[in-house]
């Protein structure tokens, strides 16, 4: 069993309104050391395989096909 952790966030250069709102909230709470905030989502997949190469190939296809919208989003995959 392999666990794949997919992190998806808006591409650099695409305005992240939620990140901006969170940044603003942190400022209001006097957390002044925050330079930038990006809000994304994490999708955790349990895969029925022990082959990491195969898992990476499959999850990459999942990201390209549905999990991320590559017009506006970047994704990264971590296998555990």
């Amino acid at each position, binding site marked *: 069993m392999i666990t794949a952790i997919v992190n998806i966030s*808006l591409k650099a250069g*695409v305005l992240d*309104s*939620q990140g901006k709102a969170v940044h603003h909230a942190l400022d209001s709470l006097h957390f002044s050391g925050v330079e930038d905030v990006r809000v994304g989502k994490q999708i955790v997949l349990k895969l029925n395989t022990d082959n990491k190469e195969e898992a990476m190939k499959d999850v990459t296809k999942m990201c390209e096909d*549905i*999990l991320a*919208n590559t*017009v*506006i989003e970047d994704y990264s995959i971590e296998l555990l």
Partner: protein
Amino acid sequence: MTKVTILQFPGTNCEYDTEYAFKKLGAQTEIVWHKSESIPSDTNLLVVAGGFSYGDYLRSGAIAKFSPVMKAVSEYAQNGGKVLGICNGFQVLTEAGLLPGALKRNDGLHFISKHHHLKVTNNDNIFLENLAQGDVINIPIAHHDGNYFIDSEGLQELHDNNQILLNYTDKDGNLQNPNGSVESIAGVCNKEKNIFGLMPHPERAMELLLGSDDGVKMLEGFLAS
């Protein structure tokens, strides 16, 4: 008689308004469930109606694009069929890659539901040819993810091919931006100009009693040609 086919996914909620609007204009309508693998062969206009297909899970329109009916939609469009996506329908069509760009969360993060003025930016297409360029119309918007994004290269292509059909404006036609969309874009078509997506709801602007009947002229145009 013109035949309008209206797609229904789990979570679609504008199919009956859309049916009402097109019936009022004399069209024959049929609502087709997303499990169908084909669309009626006598379809003149295929509408992907608004709502919250699959609860907007993952991203608006992201899961609907894999519904069985979408293969038939792509084929219909590739053969030159006329396809209209309203609101969630616009999101589904961008997710499916049938229209350029993507729709993000509104910049203000709020769901926006109100009447808004729109300017007809280009009318050299089968959808808006009975409106004049520069016409300002009053049509409701109701969305959380209506913030149109396209990269600068894509935006240039939209300009070069007159693919920006509608912009958000004030009543005098000056650009306004309710949701953060690139260049206040409210609706675009594909390069071949047979697929049109817009966030505003013309099917909700059919009766003066409800605030505006500017949708009538727009929808009449969709039925023509």
